């Protein structure tokens, strides 16, 4: 099923990353002009992968590439299988039966017709369509883009998938921490946030103020914010404990804002624990927001004084990127992608404990200049590393790498 996408121009991002950077990307992309690339994943709607492809593909077209996006199809049984695979690749222990492997292979077989003949590059996203590589012909380079953390993958599932992965020419992971030992080059390309979406677009102070008013948040009192779903791995109760260590000496308020928990029994339990931990303290605001409350989250992040992401385990943590983009210093748990984003002492602080979190909140609340400097650094770091043009540039390089020799350390383009 081919996906239609609106046009985008890379030049529209010049105001964020500068005209020089755009020129560099266009120069580099000249060496791919006219190349065809087919992206295949398993969903057109929802989730980070669809969001990334939503801007990557139009930008590739803007660079003169023939970029297409197709979505594989499968029955509910197949997606139940891939859900179990997904769980186990994340360290879970779902039962995997021989019938499940068979269902995976049958669906792979049925989707082979999706492959466009004669394309220069096949970009296959995540494990669901990984088996399509069995149909690769002589022409074209194959790239596997893995968006998930494989570091604790169940050996049975990984043992089943790995022979497919080894047939690709290269792989891309968000972080080196997510990679496995493979026989093919493993490129590292972190994800990006789009500054032109509702989540991240500039906002008038009046709109920020009206969102704060809506939730009865005092705009004059410093705001400590954590945005995350209500999940124990995000340690919202730990954030409340840190807040309570701080608030008696530094008057402030805490906002814990996250997605609604109505369809998630575990989330409901955690939300109840969070409410119990907050007690009757009117300075703690617990906001269970709908999944599409992008502008409200944007306003809360822009209205915050200090942002916290005290995760005990984290993927890349794009919510940290979003806060940094809004020039906020972030205090984050020293895990996953948070470690890659927060330059300790320069764009925020990495912490390990409730007490450490409290100490850093206090330090930042008491130092407006430090906050501003760190916020500036944070925004610049995101500008140069985690915006769509940079993401696109790395994709261009990953494709050039396969075209010119993935194992060369220097490639001279003339």
């Amino acid at each position, binding site marked *: 099923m081919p996906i239609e996408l609106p046009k985008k121009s890379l030049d529209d991002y010049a105001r964020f990353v500068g005209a020089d950077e755009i020129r560099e990307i266009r120069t580099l992309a000249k060496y791919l002009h006219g190349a065809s690339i087919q992206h295949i994943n398993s969903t057109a709607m929802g989730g980070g992968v669809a969001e990334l492809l939503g801007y990557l593909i139009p930008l590739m077209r803007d660079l003169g590439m023939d970029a297409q996006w197709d979505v594989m199809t499968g029955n509910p049984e197949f997606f139940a299988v891939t859900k179990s695979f997904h769980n186990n690749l994340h360290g879970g222990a779902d039962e995997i039966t021989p019938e499940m492997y068979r269902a995976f292979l049958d669906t792979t077989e049925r989707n082979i017709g999706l492959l466009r003949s004669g394309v220069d590059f096949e970009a296959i996203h995540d494990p669901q369509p990984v088996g399509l590589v069995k149909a690769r012909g002589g022409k074209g380079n194959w790239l596997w883009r893995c968006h998930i953390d494989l570091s604790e993958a169940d050996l049975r599932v990984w043992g089943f998938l790995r022979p497919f992965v080894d047939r690709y020419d290269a792989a891309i992971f968000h972080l080196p921490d997510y990679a496995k030992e493979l026989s093919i080059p493993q490129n590292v390309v972190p994800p990006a946030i789009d500054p032109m979406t509702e989540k991240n677009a500039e906002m008038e102070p009046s709109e920020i103020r009206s969102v704060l008013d809506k939730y009865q948040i005092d705009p004059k009192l410093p705001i400590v914010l954590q945005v995350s779903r209500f999940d124990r791995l995000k340690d919202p109760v730990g954030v409340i404990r840190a807040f309570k260590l701080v608030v008696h000496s530094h008057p402030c308020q805490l906002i814990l804002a996250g997605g609604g928990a109505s369809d998630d029994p575990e989330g409901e339990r955690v939300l109840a624990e969070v409410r119990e931990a907050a007690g009757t303290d009117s300075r703690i605001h617990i906001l269970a927001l709908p999944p599409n409350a992008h502008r409200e989250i944007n306003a809360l992040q822009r209205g915050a004084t200090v942002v916290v992401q005290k995760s005990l385990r984290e993927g890349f943590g794009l919510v940290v990127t979003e806060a940094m983009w809004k020039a906020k210093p972030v205090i984050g748990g020293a895990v996953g992608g948070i470690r890659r984003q927060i330059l300790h002492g320069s764009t925020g602080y990495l912490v390990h404990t409730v007490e450490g979190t409290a100490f850093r909140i206090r330090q930042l609340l008491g130092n407006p200049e430090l906050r501003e400097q760190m916020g500036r650094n944070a925004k610049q770091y995101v500008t140069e590393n985690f915006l769509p043009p940079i993401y696109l540039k790395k994709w261009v390089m990953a494709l050039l790498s396969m075209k010119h020799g993935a194992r060369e*350390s220097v490639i001279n383009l003339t």
Partner: protein
Amino acid sequence: MPAPFLFQSTATLTRYTGFSADSARSLQRCLARVSGASIYYHLHFNIFRRHFLTSEIINDFARWVWVTLGDEPLAEQLAAVDPFEFVKIHDARTRLISLIGDYLGQADYGHAVGARQRFYFQEGQSFTFPTGQVVSSADQFREEVRKAPAESIFYHFVVAPLRLGTKDNDFSSWLSSELGLDKAAARIRALSPYETDLFKLGGKIAELL
């Protein structure tokens, strides 16, 4: 007629090497085994990723030992390693290995971190390409070096000494050999990208000419 100077630029794709360390001892062991490209990447590329911190820039090894291992004395020693001192990666590798070895002494075991806190060795695959800027005189050079992208300055100023195997950079080398501007070449040679934001170095070079 002097040979013209052709500005090149570079872009780098990062990849995982398969090596990771969880302690100072395993960092040392990996340093002996990883590619030269990986050591080069971790010594030099922070100048790009963190260029706006200028004087606070330290190499990736020192940063990990400081922030994650929490071993400040070792981090201080690793941070003092000047990447510009070496024109061969082999020499940098030897220095880092011996520095950690001297610090740890004969101890077999030191503090280790969990799987999610390891140091992951990466390396860069570089793509070089012409920017389209070509100059034949000092005036033209001054004008174009101001406009050159940071990646181009990085290529000619930071990468060049290793590429050439001397302690020189492309700019000084060309100004001296083609235009006979030895004094200007020496002033530029004395610049350090660790003292000036890499993104402002082009302007600084133009001023020194």
